[in-house]
């Protein structure tokens, strides 16, 4: 016993000394943020674009949504897969069941091993997916981000639903009109790191700085993590904390539906204006029962369709992702690659009681 304890104590002492030595040694100098130049070579291919190249037959596309059971992303991906059939390719959707930063990574590896021609990804975290995506591009697998961008050097194209600025600003403009530019407002977002949500929120804040919104005050940005129950609870929490809240903007389809569900069953129904981004099928009920007056969204089917054609154009060598290149996206017509490889789908559609029945998605 004695011997062992003495030995144990010695070991602890040695370890302690080692740690403090290491600390002392390393504290003097080292690699800091400033000393480091992030020299990541651009992984994009150097091949020349051939605008006249035909779309290749038999292309294999892998769609990787933020999470597999998100109804909105399912619509996007299914439309993309259907588009692939149009040009003689095949598509499939794989992905994690949670929207954690890291959970998409193993799926990217999988798509690489399965030798897909292109990976289409809606990134949960712009950087966590970067390593494997760069590896994919090195193996000449094309990478197209849609819906939620990755870091710019980790993909060739980003298919943006609508210009982020337009989405953010228009949501505030709509809500402002609805509440007479007066009162407390809150935002119910998805996860704290969702790239697209955060960009829109930035533009919402920008818009709110304009003089006409001087009586509108953003009191809180809540996060429902794109989980129905959590978004529901967050809405409940918002109303408890700010009983005189006038409006909520929820720029996420899961969030707005959960918030509408809470409001429709509460005494706040009709008193709090809810706006944001939702799908007609999810929101139809709440538009009809008067909980929600209007909301907007781009057409997710067109988003998936465009992404699919863009990936095919890349994989066929029609474009490389450079600014100014043009490609045909089937029935949607011609698109041009913008700055930083961004392709913008178009303007968001506003849904209300007048037009909602003409949409089914």
């Amino acid at each position, binding site marked *: *016993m004695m*011997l*062992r*304890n003495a030995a*144990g104590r010695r070991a*602890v002492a040695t370890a302690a000394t080692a*740690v403090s030595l*290491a*600390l002392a040694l*390393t*504290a003097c*100098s*080292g*690699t*800091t*943020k*400033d000393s*480091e130049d*992030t*020299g*990541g070579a651009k992984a994009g291919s150097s091949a020349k674009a051939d605008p006249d190249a035909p779309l290749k037959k038999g292309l294999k596309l892998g769609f990787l949504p933020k999470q*597999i059971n998100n109804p909105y992303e399912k619509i996007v991906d299914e439309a993309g897969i259907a588009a692939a059939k149009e040009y003689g390719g095949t598509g*499939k959707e*794989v*992905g*994690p*069941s*949670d929207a*954690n*930063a*890291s959970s998409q*990574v*193993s*799926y990217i*590896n*999988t798509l*690489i*091993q*399965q*030798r897909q021609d292109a990976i289409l990804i809606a990134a949960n*975290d*712009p*950087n*966590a997916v*970067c*390593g*494997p995506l760069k*590896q994919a591009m090195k193996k000449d697998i094309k990478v197209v981000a849609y819906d939620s961008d990755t*870091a710019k050097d980790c993909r060739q194209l980003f298919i943006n639903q609508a210009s982020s600025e337009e989405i953010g600003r228009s949501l505030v403009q709509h809500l402002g009109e609805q509440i007479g530019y007066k009162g407390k407002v809150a935002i119910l977002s998805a996860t*704290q*790191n969702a790239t697209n949500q955060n960009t829109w929120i930035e533009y919402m804040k920008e818009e709110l700085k304009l003089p006409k919104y001087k009586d509108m005050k953003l009191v809180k940005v809540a*996060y429902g993590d794109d989980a129905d129950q959590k978004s529901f609870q967050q809405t409940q929490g918002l109303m408890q904390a700010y009983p005189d809240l006038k409006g909520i903007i929820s720029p996420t389809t899961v969030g707005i539906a959960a918030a509408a569900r809470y409001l429709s069953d509460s005494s706040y129904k009709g008193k709090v204006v809810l706006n944001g981004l939702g799908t007609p099928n999810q929101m139809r009920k709440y538009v009809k029962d008067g909980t929600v007056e209007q909301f907007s969204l781009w057409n997710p089917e067109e988003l998936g369709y465009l992404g699919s054609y863009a990936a095919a154009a890349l994989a066929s060598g029609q474009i490389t992702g450079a600014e100014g290149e043009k490609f045909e996206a089937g029935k949607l017509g011609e698109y041009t690659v913008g700055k930083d490889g961004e392709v913008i789908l178009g303007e968001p559609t506003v849904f209300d009681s007048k037009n909602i029945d003409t949409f089914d998605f």
Partner: protein
Amino acid sequence: MTTAPDTKTASAPRAVTKPSLVRALALRWDTAVGVLLVAVLVVGLGTTEGFGSTENLAFAFNDIAEVALIALPMTLLVVAGQVDLSVASMLGLGSALTGALWEAGWAFETIVPVVLLVGVAGGLLNGWLVTKVGLPSLAVTIGTLALYRGLASVALGSDAVTDFPQVYADWAVDTTTVPGTFLTYPVLLFVVLAAVTAVVLHATGLGRSLFAIGAQEEAAYFAGIRVKRIKLLLFVVTGLFSAFAGVVFTLRYGSARADNGLGFEMLVIASVLLGGIDFDGGKGTLFGAVAGVLLIGLLKNLLTLNDIANEVQVIVTGLLLVASVLTPRVVAAVVERRHRRAANTPAPQQ
């Protein structure tokens, strides 16, 4: 030394009727997991294109590097009848701190020891609450699970810090392998640490003490084992490994975040239990735990490569886990009954 009871033989099924080697091996769950692991490898190599590529194997193993690293001290803890649910939160705290300090302009070489010290401090708090205040480890670490994750959010908020120095980032990624092998550096580190842990658990007095504490804490105490000190040490080592896993995770994904490794504690504990470490303490081998970790990792990789939905993967893991807890008990019960019948036949009393 000799005072520590050798619980491994004490708890093994007594007087097996036909003690052949094959039979002894077949009765051990950890051996079964090892066989299962080999089976998954063989099936994967035979059926799935890309599974056997160096690149994929490097990825598959590296993908569970953090879980594997934390599973080592967790094995020791569970053998000693304890558990630490705060490991994933400590990973998150380690990651968030790495990010926050890097953002603040600290040298990376300074950040790592500081993060490790925070891990030690977290482990000390867990250990202190368990040994000095006398609370059950499950309750304590449920509390610190929330506490450490909360601190992580305070440290970094909802930000994600990126752009870590290339030289360190390259160390952790899947594409950098030890020349000539498919082992990545975090995995290599795991192999070394697993060997050390195996020696500690199975070939030292400290290891025997852990089994003794797990089997019968009071008996171990009266046998002269410094129960509290050892438990404290275990929690400290677990905190240290978890914080270090936080650094590895951060570098591997190039993204420091407070919510990194959310839910990993379950994966770690599941792997350890799958490897045949008895949750009641006192039983198990490090070989089993390592096999359990690798099995979960490889199986996940193989299922994903075959486009098996995540939900199904969760079910498969769950079934394996239930089997791992159930099988040894069923086997023990069967052996016990046969043994009793054998003992009863010559002299039927009633």
